[in-house]
């Protein structure tokens, strides 16, 4: 079965109307974003009698959004790398969605949880000796940080940053770099203001610098960057398997949002 290109937003709405039935499972949160994806010729649909997949073309793979009305109906997937994310609340992803995707050929990848904090609920920063953390102003620092981030995350979770974004990130003062007193780079963090909150988008520490509280130092510097008053809000996603990071965020005062994702891939 070959996916069909969605040519117009009206066509997308018609498909949603057809498959968005009561009791369905879906992760289609594209909504108005779909219009922009369609304009760029990147939205495709794979339709069965009761179930449908929307496929958004990415660099070398497709991101999949699903409507499942009938657990028995399977669709023949295209021979491309596919990734989908089940968004869920609670401890575990809904079994019915996981099972259907597994029957379709997807495998579980990573679980990520969303955390939030208000400035007033955060613990005081600690002094980390021998480490200097500053906003990156040199393009070389931004490029180094991007390489470190891209080496630390999988490309399917939406974490990939093109190197071409380095000048913009410098301009937006969006990267913090941790260096030792000799100027050796130890780690980096990228953040942005979005949805009325300061988002921690990426943080990574060089393997040889781990266990020295560099991640905590970067997080504390990011908190100060986003601080306006006691109500300043902070948001982040963290891999559930990354126990040391989860412990650090919880000790710092971050609380889970009851919002998680399980990524599943066909690779």
């Amino acid at each position: 079965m070959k996916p069909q290109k969605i040519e117009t937003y009206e066509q997308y709405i018609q498909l949603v109307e057809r498959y968005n039935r009561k009791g369905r499972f879906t992760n289609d949160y594209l909504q108005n974003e779909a219009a922009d994806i369609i304009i760029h010729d990147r939205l495709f649909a794979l339709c069965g009698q009761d179930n449908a997949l929307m496929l958004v073309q990415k660099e070398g793979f497709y991101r999949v959004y699903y409507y499942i009305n009938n657990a028995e109906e399977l669709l023949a997937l295209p021979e491309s790398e596919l990734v989908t994310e089940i968004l869920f609340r609670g401890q575990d992803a809904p079994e019915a969605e996981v099972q259907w995707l597994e029957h379709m050929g997807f495998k579980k990848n990573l679980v990520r949880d969303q955390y939030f904090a208000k400035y007033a609920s955060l613990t005081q920063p600690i002094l980390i000796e021998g480490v200097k953390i500053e906003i990156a102003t040199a393009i070389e620092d931004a490029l180094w940080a991007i390489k470190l981030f891209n080496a630390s995350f999988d490309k399917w979770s939406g974490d990939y940053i093109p190197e071409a974004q380095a000048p913009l990130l410098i301009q937006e003062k969006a990267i913090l770099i941790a260096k030792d007193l000799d100027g050796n780079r130890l780690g980096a963090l990228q953040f942005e203001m979005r949805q009325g909150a300061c988002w921690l988008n990426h943080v990574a520490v060089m393997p040889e610098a781990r266990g020295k509280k560099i991640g905590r130092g970067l997080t504390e510097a990011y908190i100060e960057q986003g601080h306006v008053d006691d109500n300043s809000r902070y948001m982040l996603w963290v891999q559930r398997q990354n126990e040391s990071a989860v412990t650090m965020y919880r000790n710092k005062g971050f609380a889970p949002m009851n919002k998680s994702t399980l990524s599943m891939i066909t690779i």
Partner: protein
Amino acid sequence: MEKLMEILKGIRPDVNFANETALIDDGILDSFDVVSIISELDDAFDVQIRINELDPENFNSAEAIWKLVQELQK
């Protein structure tokens, strides 16, 4: 309204729904939140909201969401 507030608080415990009046315009609710709210409204109040009826004005405050529920129940 009390039931709605419970639903909203369950979905976004970090948001003060009693005070916020620009939940969509200020980007406080993302699309996952909106779809979760729609799904819970369907379960709790038996109302179905179509995707092309997702007017941001209907989701900017708890009061606006409650008004929408009441209109759909008529």
